[in-house]
């Protein structure tokens, strides 16, 4: 048998040809952020070693340590916040090469809601009203007042607006008969104490009433509410106006504030929420900062810290009222409520 002589290599080797490129833009901002976190005491040499000398892991671990495991788990149980530090203004849904940059040498810390929390407050308001007339209403209006200062929520006001739009839409349609449609009837879902105070809402007298019951039967809820009000008033300037033009709409609601399960507010939210992800939404929290500028970094930390503390206090209250309702609140439920009759 004759073996053919070895021929020249048909294809040149690809061993030396780079097949993968890792392109990094603004990498120095990450190192500056890590330096700022270390200078503030949030990151340490031990953290650096623990994270395998990886800057992204170091920054993430340092921030999560500042939030704390227990507080982080509380938030994860109740709401889906996406906390990001980025050099572009992406919204999580339309991320791409066209994302506008934050600015030269600047980063942006944002918090966007991917899944909102749920606060069923009807039984608690009833119990507060039984303790003192007007206490439940004062609690509700004070809570709504504090929430609006920090985040977008979905409450009876949004539901009322949705119902009004629905009725207007049907009345303008000549071919439709209003009798053929089922409207949510939000006003009927409101507890009597709120229906009577729809025009006055937050009042100084209500605040005094709350203060006078801070050591009462539901003193713990009232003290948490006062903490929420205090945190809501903390000066923590954000940069929502700067980035507003980059998004299609306002932030997504981070909390549905309903009175009962399956009530008219929940029904309206279920309808409206189907269209909420069709466009990009502004982040709830947005602070632009240069990581190597001490004052700007401190300002961003203060705003993010206030935001986390507010959410922790809010969802601690949600869980506390939920636990109370599970053990005591159900016996006082109004059995005449239509949502319960159908359940």
């Amino acid at each position, binding site marked *: 048998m004759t073996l053919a002589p070895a021929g020249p290599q048909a*294809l*040149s080797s690809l061993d030396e040809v*780079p097949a993968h490129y890792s392109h990094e833009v603004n990498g*120095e901002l990450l190192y500056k952020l890590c*330096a700022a976190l*270390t200078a503030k005491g949030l990151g340490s040499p031990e953290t650096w070693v623990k994270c395998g000398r990886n*800057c992204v892991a170091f920054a993430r671990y340092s921030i999560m340590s500042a939030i704390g495991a227990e507080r982080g788990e509380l938030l994860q149980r109740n709401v889906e916040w996406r906390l990001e530090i980025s050099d572009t203004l992406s919204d999580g849904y339309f991320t791409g090469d066209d994302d506008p940059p934050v600015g030269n040498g600047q980063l942006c810390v944002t918090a966007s809601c991917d899944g909102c929390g749920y606060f069923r407050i009807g039984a608690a308001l009833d119990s507060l009203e039984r303790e003192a007339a007007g206490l439940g209403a004062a609690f509700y209006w004070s809570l709504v007042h504090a929430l609006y200062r920090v985040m977008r929520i979905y409450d009876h006001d949004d539901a009322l607006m949705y119902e009004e739009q629905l009725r207007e839409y049907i009345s303008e349609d000549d071919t439709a008969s209003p009798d053929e449609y089922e409207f949510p009837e939000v006003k009927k879902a409101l507890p009597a104490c709120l229906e009577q105070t729809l025009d006055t809402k937050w009042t100084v007298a209500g605040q005094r009433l709350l203060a006078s019951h801070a050591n009462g039967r539901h003193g713990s809820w009232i003290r948490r509410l006062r903490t929420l009000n205090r945190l809501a008033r903390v000066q923590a300037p954000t940069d929502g106006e700067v980035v507003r033009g980059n998004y299609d709409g306002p932030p997504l609601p981070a909390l549905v504030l309903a009175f009962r399960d399956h009530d008219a507010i929940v029904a309206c939210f279920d309808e409206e929420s189907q269209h909420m992800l069709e466009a990009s939404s502004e982040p709830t929290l947005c602070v632009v900062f240069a990581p190597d500028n001490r004052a700007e970094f401190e300002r961003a930390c203060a705003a993010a810290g206030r935001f986390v503390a507010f959410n922790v206090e809010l969802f601690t209250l949600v869980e506390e009222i939920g636990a109370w309702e599970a053990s005591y609140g159900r016996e006082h439920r109004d059995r005449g409520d239509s949502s319960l009759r159908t359940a």
Partner: protein
Amino acid sequence: MTRDELLALFAEKATAPPPEANQLLAGHLQCTASLRLASAVSAALNVYVGSDPVPLSTPSPLLPPLM
């Protein structure tokens, strides 16, 4: 490692020149001929994947990178 050494490390990394991979890619993005070639290859791939059942013949010596 102390805290000050860690801060010095981050400062050094922040001011270091871009990595070689970054420079290669930047060079490619600035070279008109390289971009034209990439566009032609991309178009040829689209034709091949799209409708033409005949595979493109492989040139004997592969073209070296332009950078």
